[in-house]
């Protein structure tokens, strides 16, 4: 079985503690597994409000990942 390679993007206040805008991850089968890992790595994520986007579309449920997927953690928007 070939490895699943995805990118994770961080924005806004989340970058205050991730300190990076982007990480690459291997072999995570779905978004819940990614989130579980991220919360271990960045405990402050547990108290942060955010939405999840998969390839620029907001998702509300656990979703299976394939290679080249991009997962983004989007804190509340503040444009304008």
């Amino acid at each position: 079985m070939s490895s699943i390679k995805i990118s994770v993007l961080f924005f806004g206040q989340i970058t205050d503690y991730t300190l990076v805008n982007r990480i690459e991850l291997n072999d995570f089968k779905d978004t819940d597994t990614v989130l579980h890992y991220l919360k271990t790595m960045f405990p402050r994520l547990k108290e942060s409000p955010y939405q999840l986007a998969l390839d620029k579309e907001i998702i509300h449920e656990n979703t299976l990942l394939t290679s080249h997927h991009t997962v983004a953690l989007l804190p509340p928007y503040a444009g304008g």
Partner: protein
Amino acid sequence: MSSDHRVRNIFIQGAISSGFIGEKIADHAAKKNIGGHSIFLGQVRADLKEDKEVTGIEYTSYEEMALEKMHEIRQAIFAKYELTCMHVYHSLGLVSVGEISLFVFASSVHRAPAIEACREVVERIKKELPVWGKELLSDHSHVWKENRN
């Protein structure tokens, strides 16, 4: 032309100058069927946050997603309102207090569609575009901008 299917860039590095706004207005003199323009400008305020004054906002965006979303908003607005044209510009990077970070410009034959479309686009931009603002404070700390409804 204005309601085409191309995804357009809306982002400008730094503040939107009054000269740029004046030029965009002048560009419309050739469109002789326009009767009304409605413009909204967002300006950075020197708010007090944690007793310190905001000196500027550093804007970031998930640009690709924002441009796709803006395209979707644009298509919906052109379907809903009879507009001659519409232009949207949003700053990225540093915009200092008193400078302009958002410029929405809608035009129509009679005034009502331009006015209503401009207002709706401003509301949708603030709610739906993945854009963030880091409010830089006078002591070099920062807080993150939160939009009111």
